[in-house]
């Protein structure tokens, strides 16, 4: 099907509109981070102002930016690696040895994501408290991994489904055990899919705020909790909050930009052949 120039024009306008709408908050945040606190709350909003780096220096030197950054990296990488280790065998079993419960199991796993996290805040908080996992990296890694696990299993399941079953069976005939099948056959064949699953898991963990804020205070606080500290009872510091947010999003934004081909391929897998 070929589209007319007018159709192309409309689609382009629509596309740009949506893109700008989605980009606007991010752009405004970056802009605000360079304003003084007074300029930041100026009404009407200022587009021309004297940029300052004071917010960044404040946030980096007075706040614990580097500590939060390290925690964010550790939590998103840790929960992703752990999640993949658990999800890969699960997805392998469901993709290649399905039984009559497989579909229900998949749906059940996803259904846990349909419940608002706050619904289980109390039990999870108490569990973490009793087991001494409050405000620890390992505690947050565990909770983050569990919260992303359904999505990781679902994605891996879809990618593994794309690998012809015959190839796995051929490798079984050739003497490959489960580990060898995963390592020598599945890993290379579903590699791009596994990579985009890992990327998504990293991004989800990085941006997760609810558990980070509720289960950490100082020691294990990642960037999302760090940002929240600038919305304090003493007042809302828009410019510093924006600077903190900009610093928090920057690493994952750069990371996402570098891996965007991989991500898009993974997220539209199956839809676009």
């Amino acid at each position, binding site marked *: 099907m070929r589209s007319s120039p007018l159709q192309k024009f409309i689609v382009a306008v629509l596309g740009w509109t949506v893109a700008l709408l989605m980009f606007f908050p991010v752009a405004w945040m970056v802009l605000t981070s360079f304003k003084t606190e007074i300029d930041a709350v100026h009404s009407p909003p200022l587009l021309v102002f004297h940029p300052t780096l004071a917010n960044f220096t404040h946030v980096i030197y007075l706040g614990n930016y580097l500590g939060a950054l390290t925690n964010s990296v550790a939590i998103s990488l840790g929960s992703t690696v752990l999640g993949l280790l658990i999800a890969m065998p699960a997805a392998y079993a469901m993709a290649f040895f399905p039984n*009559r419960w497989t579909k229900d199991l998949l749906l059940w796993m996803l259904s846990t994501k349909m419940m608002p996290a706050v619904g289980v805040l109390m039990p999870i908080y108490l569990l973490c408290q009793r087991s001494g996992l409050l405000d620890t990296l390992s505690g947050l890694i565990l909770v983050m991994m569990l919260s992303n696990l359904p999505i990781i299993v679902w994605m891996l399941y879809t990618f593994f489904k794309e690998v*012809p079953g*015959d*190839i796995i*069976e*051929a*490798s*079984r*005939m*050739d*003497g*490959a055990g489960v580990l*060898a099948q995963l390592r*020598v*056959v599945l890993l*290379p*064949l579903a590699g791009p899919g596994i990579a985009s699953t890992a990327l998504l898991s990293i991004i989800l963990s990085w941006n997760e705020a609810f558990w980070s804020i509720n289960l950490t205070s100082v020691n294990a606080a990642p960037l999302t909790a760090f940002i929240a500290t600038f919305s304090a009872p003493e007042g809302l510091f828009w410019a510093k909050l924006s600077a903190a947010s900009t610093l928090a999003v920057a690493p994952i934004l750069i990371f996402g930009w570098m891996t965007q081909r991989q991500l898009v391929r993974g997220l539209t897998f199956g839809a676009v052949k």
Partner: protein
Amino acid sequence: MCTLELRNLRKVYSNVEVIKGVDLTIKDREFVVFVGPSGCGKSTLLRMIAGLEEISGGDFMIDGVRVNDVPPDKRGLAMVFQSYALYPHMTVAENMAFALRLAGVPKPERDERVMVAAKTLQLDALLERKPANLSGGQRQRVAIGRAIVRQPKAFLFDEPLSNLDAALRVQTRIEIAKLHNDLKSTMIYVTHDQVEAMTLADRIVVFNAGKIEQVGTPLELYHNPANLFVAGFIGSPKMNLIAAEVRSSDGRTSVLTLEGGSLFSVPKALVPGQKLTIGLRPEHIAVVAEGGMAGRVEVVEHLGNETIAYASIGAAQPLTVKLPSDSDVRIGEMLHFASRGQTASLFDEAGSAIMSPSA
């Protein structure tokens, strides 16, 4: 040495029995072909033999040892898949050496065994290529090579030629026949193509609806089909199966009234009034001057080496007749047909053979 024995093998998928008790012994170095319509369970049975499907009941023995619960790679069997199932990220050589690598065979020996197999299959120039850069026929040869390299006790082929085009299929079929001759190992071959079955098999096993209909050499099945199913399945064009009733019998020969009214005599004592089905192979019917079955020619197919005519004799199905290529039958012509040399099969109402031509 490799003898495979199937004793009352069963397969049940969530309360549906798909293999309903199969008894079969496959002798050492035998080439056995499982043939049957799609969905008859022949592939499932092969996968049970391979160890890829669990066996729900019965015993499967390799050289007298029960292997029901032995994992696929420990059974010493190699399988060639319809889809080739090559590892796309490995070269031809790596594909062929994969099983040896997993088994811990040292590299020099691996290379040597791959080379020997590659030479046999004329793959030696392609060893460094990836499967994506091979033609369908070459991929199938790699799949066979991967099986050969393992020096298995028996080869299992699951419709290996179905994905190839017609010309390549004939060529590869001949290669497989040659391979069996050279390797002298036991082979089980699943196909729905009766020409492959007839040309390759030492013995053919005809399956239908999860059960064996008949086991025999290709010619046994052709000449003495045990029932209507085998009669209709083996032979191309298909055997004519015509409903008939015994009109009279004198103790040595009987006269049958065929559907449509023609009379036909068979050298066999039968009970007058008995209803049965008569089977006549198209190649065993000749055009005669008069008598026999009278029919009007409806369709003529000139195949070059032979001519196939379809004539209406008043029965539900037209009579298929195979004629020499130079016969000049025309559509609309009225002809008389008779069986050559009394070659007819008879089946009772239940579909079992009650008389075969040689009886």
